[in-house]
């Protein structure tokens, strides 16, 4: 059998801690262990990938056996894969303000319980808080002699409150996740906020579906950036012909002044010191001044497509890397929130996110707000619930009338190809001249 043209090994070993408190009861609080490796080889044509547990790349026997297995897999591939050249380097991982490993499980549980207790406001019938922490020790090496070794500590929590009145139930949810250390202290305010949202939603009306002038708050505008632009700019979708952004580099696809960036170097929840192919991470301006500038790539899609930047390969542990976003955002403009509401006149303000989804080939996205307010004469009036927004990527970016100056980033998780990776996204308030809002009000 021929030698691989290239191989790499990525081992992620570590532990995951979860605490789950439901209605004041500590349901579970414990730690699990993982040690997964992914061995990739490039055969005469495409990839052979082997994933296995507790693999030791230092062992010559284990490595050569894994490479041989992966080469046998690669034999069925027919697509000649080339790898683009990209710089190999790793950033230092930001220091932890407080290392969660120095806080024992009892204390973590007690602090989480305080946040959960803070959500028990009148009319709240259920509260649930979860803490998650993962310690990943990542080791990368490839056949070109590149190596990387680092440790990432991610932790965070979520708090959900359910309020009920006369058979109606509503929920509020808040969360925060970080790479910069233990973050459970003095966070009761988020518990209260989740509860206040749930209670307020009991009095909210149903939004009427239709086409409206629409203001997105920073959290939802961040999800919009991620769903409507980020996924469609991923090099694998471009390469497969499965994105409406394919072939549009240099084309105006959004309003003037619009700057959309994916930046894995920022110390947000999507930070990576080095990508999953050992490539140096760098800030990538996807859209600048409304013009499509670059796709985000791994080495394979960089070679196949061009027009962009490698260093965007990411993987959940035990899975082969895919092209992924990291910290994705719309950069600030200069409008204030009040100016945006005034300019909106009559329309709808959508706030918070229950997630979204995109079909990049069709160029259609959908995402759901946690709640919203009708805007009448530039003022927020009635609260509405269960509102979502859908639109077409190529139209919606032209429909941005104003970009705010109050950008915020929010941590979250993104699913693609069965893998979940930590990301953050953000934006300032933005005003859309028209958007299709889905709601059940008639």
């Amino acid at each position: 059998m021929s030698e691989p043209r290239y191989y790499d090994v990525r081992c992620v070993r570590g532990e995951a801690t979860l605490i789950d408190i439901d209605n004041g009861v500590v349901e579970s609080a414990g730690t699990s262990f993982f040690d997964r490796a992914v061995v990739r080889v490039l055969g005469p044509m495409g990839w052979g990938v082997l994933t296995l547990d507790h693999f030791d790349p230092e062992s010559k026997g284990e490595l050569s056996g894994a490479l041989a297995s992966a080469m046998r897999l690669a034999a069925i591939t027919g697509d000649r894969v080339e790898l683009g050249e990209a710089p190999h380097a790793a950033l230092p991982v930001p220091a932890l303000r407080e290392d969660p490993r120095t806080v024992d499980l009892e204390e973590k549980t007690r602090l989480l319980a305080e946040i959960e207790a803070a959500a028990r406001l009148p009319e709240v019938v259920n509260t649930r808080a979860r803490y998650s922490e993962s310690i990943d020790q990542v080791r990368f090496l490839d056949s070109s002699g590149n190596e990387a070794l680092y440790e990432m500590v991610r932790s965070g929590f979520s708090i959900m409150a359910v309020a009920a009145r006369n058979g109606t139930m509503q929920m509020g949810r808040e969360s925060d996740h970080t790479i910069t250390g233990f973050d459970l202290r003095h966070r009761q305010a988020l518990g209260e906020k989740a509860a206040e949202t749930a209670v307020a939603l009991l009095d909210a009306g149903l939004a009427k579906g239709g086409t409206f002038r629409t203001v997105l708050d920073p959290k939802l505008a961040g999800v919009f950036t991620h769903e409507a632009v980020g996924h469609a700019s991923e090099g694998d979708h471009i390469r497969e012909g499965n994105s409406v952004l394919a072939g549009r580099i240099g084309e105006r696809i959004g309003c003037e002044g619009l700057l959309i960036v994916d930046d894995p170097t920022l110390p947000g929840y999507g930070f990576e010191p080095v990508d999953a192919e050992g490539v140096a991470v760098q800030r990538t301006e996807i859209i600048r001044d409304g013009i499509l500038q670059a796709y985000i790539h791994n080495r394979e899609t960089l070679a196949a497509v061009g027009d962009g930047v490698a260093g965007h390969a990411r993987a959940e542990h035990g899975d082969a890397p895919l092209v992924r976003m990291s910290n994705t955002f719309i950069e600030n403009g200069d409008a204030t929130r009040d100016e945006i509401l005034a300019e909106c006149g009559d329309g709808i303000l959508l706030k918070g996110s229950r997630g979204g989804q995109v079909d990049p080939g069709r160029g259609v996205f959908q995402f759901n707000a946690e709640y919203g307010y009708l805007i009448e004469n530039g003022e927020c009036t009635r609260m509405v619930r269960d509102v979502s927004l859908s639109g077409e990527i190529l139209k919606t970016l032209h429909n941005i009338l104003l970009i705010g100056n109050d950008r915020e980033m929010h941590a979250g998780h993104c699913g693609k190809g069965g893998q979940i990776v930590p990301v953050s996204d953000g934006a300032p308030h933005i005003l859309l001249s028209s958007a299709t809002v889905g709601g059940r009000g008639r």
Partner: protein
Amino acid sequence: MNTEELLERILAEGRRRAEEVEVFCGEGIGISAEIKQAIIGVAEESRIRGLSIRTIDHGRIGVSGTGDPAKWQACLDAALASGRIADPQEWHGLPGPAEIDRKPLSADPALAVDAESAAGLIRQLLEGASAYPVEVTGGSAGLSRSVITIANTKGAYYSMERTHAGVSLETISGQSTGYEFASSPFLEDIDAGRVGEQAAFFAAHSVGGRDIESGAYDVILSPIAAAQLIGTVFLQGLSGKNVKAGRSYLAGKLGEQCTDERLSLYDDPFARGIGSTAWDAEAVPTRRLDFVREGVLQCFAYDLRTAYRYGEQTTASAVRSGGGAPGIGVHNLIVDGPASEIRDERAVYIHDVVGAHTANPLSGDFSVEVSNPFWIEGGEFGEAIRSAMYAGNVFEMLGEIGGLGNDPRIVGRLILPSIRLNNQQIIGK
């Protein structure tokens, strides 16, 4: 050390340190081939062996897991440490051994986990897709075989083999996309050629769609679209844990009419599906569980811990996702009822929806973008609809049924036909 010896050793050690111990072990191998455009670009093999330990001591439940069975001692320590922090609860013991039929329910002896077989399925997908003028953008074929074993200190010890085959294909024509898949424990259930043809049909037939006016229309949800909405919302409402915690719309509605009377929903662990099993993830023998019989809500799903806590009986509804701690779920949820010719009268056919996971799991309210909507009439697909949103409420929707199709299929852990719904709200663009 083989699995049996390993489990015995863990139980022996665990028994010295806690009143009860349970070990769940999964090991398996999977092979998949992935296509980029119409060529195989990646072939992947995944080998997994992991175990999950649960300890119960004075009502305190601890859990831990590891992907390295050699480190079972650290895992047992972590489970015990975890139990010391959990609040104690009412607990009446793990189940002992029971007489069950140990014949594997979801293992296909004919299914070969090898790269050539996966490549063969890919060829069939592509051949099927060639029936229509579309580009293939992606797709995959996967085959796997695994053995899961559970043992506890009460003497229960069950092991079962499982196989799985799955294919999917994505296509595009202009800006119209199409997606189809199939999944089953049995290779003979997978018609990869048909999946390829359908994925291509949906992209090809969606070209040149016309706008639709906002309004109320009769709608037919394909099994995929229906599974997305029912799976996101209705199943959560059936969880006994959500019911007791005040998080279920269905709480307090036992014995009440909660869907159209033609509709029945039951979990059949012995059906031909992805989750078939004679014992649940806590070693409790499974049985058919009728959640909704002819529209009337009959019961909720419980695992041992929730049942013990609230004075209920377990319904053998414990499942594990990814080999972790057990939680409440379904094995094979079947949506059933009298089938009729639901495609005769004009309706909007919805093949899939975008964003079902954003539905409100408490109230059931949703508004989603629809994928591949067509007019359908006289049993035939007619003109495509360009783009639309669909807003509704999952609980109310199941009371607005116009009929069930005669096309049940496996979609994840659900087995269901297409569903016709009256007077649903479509938002045009």
